[in-house]
């Protein structure tokens, strides 16, 4: 079984985002970077499938700069066999990144390609379906459960008000949602072993952005509390204000 997992290096969720003076990006000083949380579910699922199969190769791929090697090492430490750094810059929208990933993937033996549902920096939620479209592969996004029965795969996908059960055959693209599994932490042994695993580098350059960032701004400030009451006695006043002032009841 040949599995590829596409991962991305992103700022940690706790990070305070400081906008760079030119308004064209964030100030990276003091920012801790991590493996995109949704990609952890993708890696974990891929590892489990490979372990169940008892054979196969798991390759981690990222498009990013030199620093993204650290992210690949994390995935190798979790248990991936090899890693590829497509050295360059991702696009602001998903398409340029997807084109580079699809170009890399198109001639490789593939059973499954895993992605995270969404990168928590650009919050695009685009790359997996775009790669699938470019490669003409079946694709299920927002997957919370994955099963194989008699050679046919079933993925459970989150939609409004419930779940769809989607049937497909491989090769295919899966985008992982929280709930799919409980990702493992890299063990000390894994971290040591990762240092000796192959990490290939391919120069790809900057991906084309069709959506162009004009400027980053801080989120609109919330106005702050207009009413804070204490205890159950405050309920009547709260309800009155929600109706008359906020007009939401």
């Amino acid at each position, binding site marked *: 079984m040949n599995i590829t997992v596409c991962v991305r290096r992103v700022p940690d969720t706790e990070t305070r985002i400081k906008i760079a003076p030119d308004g064209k990006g964030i100030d990276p000083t003091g920012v801790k970077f991590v493996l995109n949380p949704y990609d952890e579910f993708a890696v974990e699922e891929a590892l489990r499938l490979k372990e169940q199969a008892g054979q196969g190769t798991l390759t981690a791929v990222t498009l990013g700069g030199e620093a993204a090697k650290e992210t690949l090492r994390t995935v190798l430490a979790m248990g991936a066999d090899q890693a590829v750094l497509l050295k360059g810059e991702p696009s602001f929208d998903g398409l340029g990144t997807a084109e580079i990933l699809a170009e890399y993937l198109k001639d490789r033996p593939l059973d499954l390609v895993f992605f995270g549902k969404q990168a928590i920096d650009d919050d695009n939620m685009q790359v997996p379906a775009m790669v699938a479209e470019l490669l003409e592969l079946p694709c299920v996004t927002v997957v919370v459960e994955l099963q194989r029965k008699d050679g046919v795969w079933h993925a459970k996908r989150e939609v409004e008000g419930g779940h769809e059960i989607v049937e497909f055959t491989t090769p295919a693209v899966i985008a992982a949602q*929280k709930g799919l599994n409980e990702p493992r932490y890299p063990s000390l042994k894994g971290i040591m072993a990762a240092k000796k695993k192959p990490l290939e580098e391919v120069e790809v350059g900057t991906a084309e952005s069709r959506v*162009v960032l*004009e400027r980053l701004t801080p989120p609109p400030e919330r106005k702050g509390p207009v009413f804070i009451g204490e205890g159950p006695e405050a309920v009547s006043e709260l309800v009155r204000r929600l109706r008359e002032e906020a007009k939401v009841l």
Partner: protein
Amino acid sequence: MATVLAFAETRGGRLRTVALEAATAARGVADALGADVAACVFGPPGVEKEAEALRRHGADVVVCAAGESFARYSPEPFTHLLAEEMARRDPLVAVFPASALGKDLAPRVAARLRVGLASEVTELRVEGGALIAVRPVYAGKAFASVRFASRPALVSIRPNVFQPRENPRSGTPAEAAANPVTISARTRVVAFEEEQRGELDVAEAPIVVSGGRGMKGPEHWQLLEALVEALGPRASLGASRAVVDAGWRPHAEQVGQTGKVVSPEVYFAIGISGAIQHQAGMRTAKVIVAVNKDPEAPIFKLVDYGIVGDLFEVLPKLTEEIRKLRASAS
């Protein structure tokens, strides 16, 4: 005449609220660009009758693909048909809802046409004849103003942000879509597992009541369910991650950076501390209400209205007063 396209999502042959939001957003852009709005509606036989509501919300033209093969979302046929329709009409802009369906479909159409897509847009405006979209990034810790280097400009709009507005157009009959041929799908939906509360998802509900660890255990959720019930059919339940990780509530209800992003008219945070990852999912709510016994809880930095107190005392009273209010109003 130039065109702005709106994708009008249906379920069970009926328009969803996000379809009217897409039509409304498209109308706004079209007016600024001097363009017409074409709304695309795909669904089972009979879905043509939904054209009326789209026209009422600003669609000049309604393009309809009605057939059993469009009764349920399937990526390839939908992508194919929409791409054909775009080739035919050459729109300046296409607006999708950032719903489960829209977030799957829009990237596929973008890849098919090789054009840019801006996701989860919260504001659209036209400057010097060009579309500018504003969208949250870094989980809402920053907002990006973007423009488009390809045409059509594709956007998906965050549910509940562009409130449906009536702007009636004269009634030409719905047109048939360009080429409703059946394209074979690469995946097949074999079942739909419905949740108890029906289709009003926390991400799209105009009123959200979320519970956190302060609720103490899943057995107390009836208190929140009673509040939701009192608030009426536009309200839905949400949860913090702590509660989901503890197995008290399903993941589909989680609000936050690794859950759903919600933008309701009013958000109730009950026994939720307001960690930065939770804020990421709810800080664009129009009105935020919190009940928490700790006056120092970070949630109070966000709220418009709050009560410092024991939720087990406050909730029943709140539910009762809202129930009374709604009973007297109806």
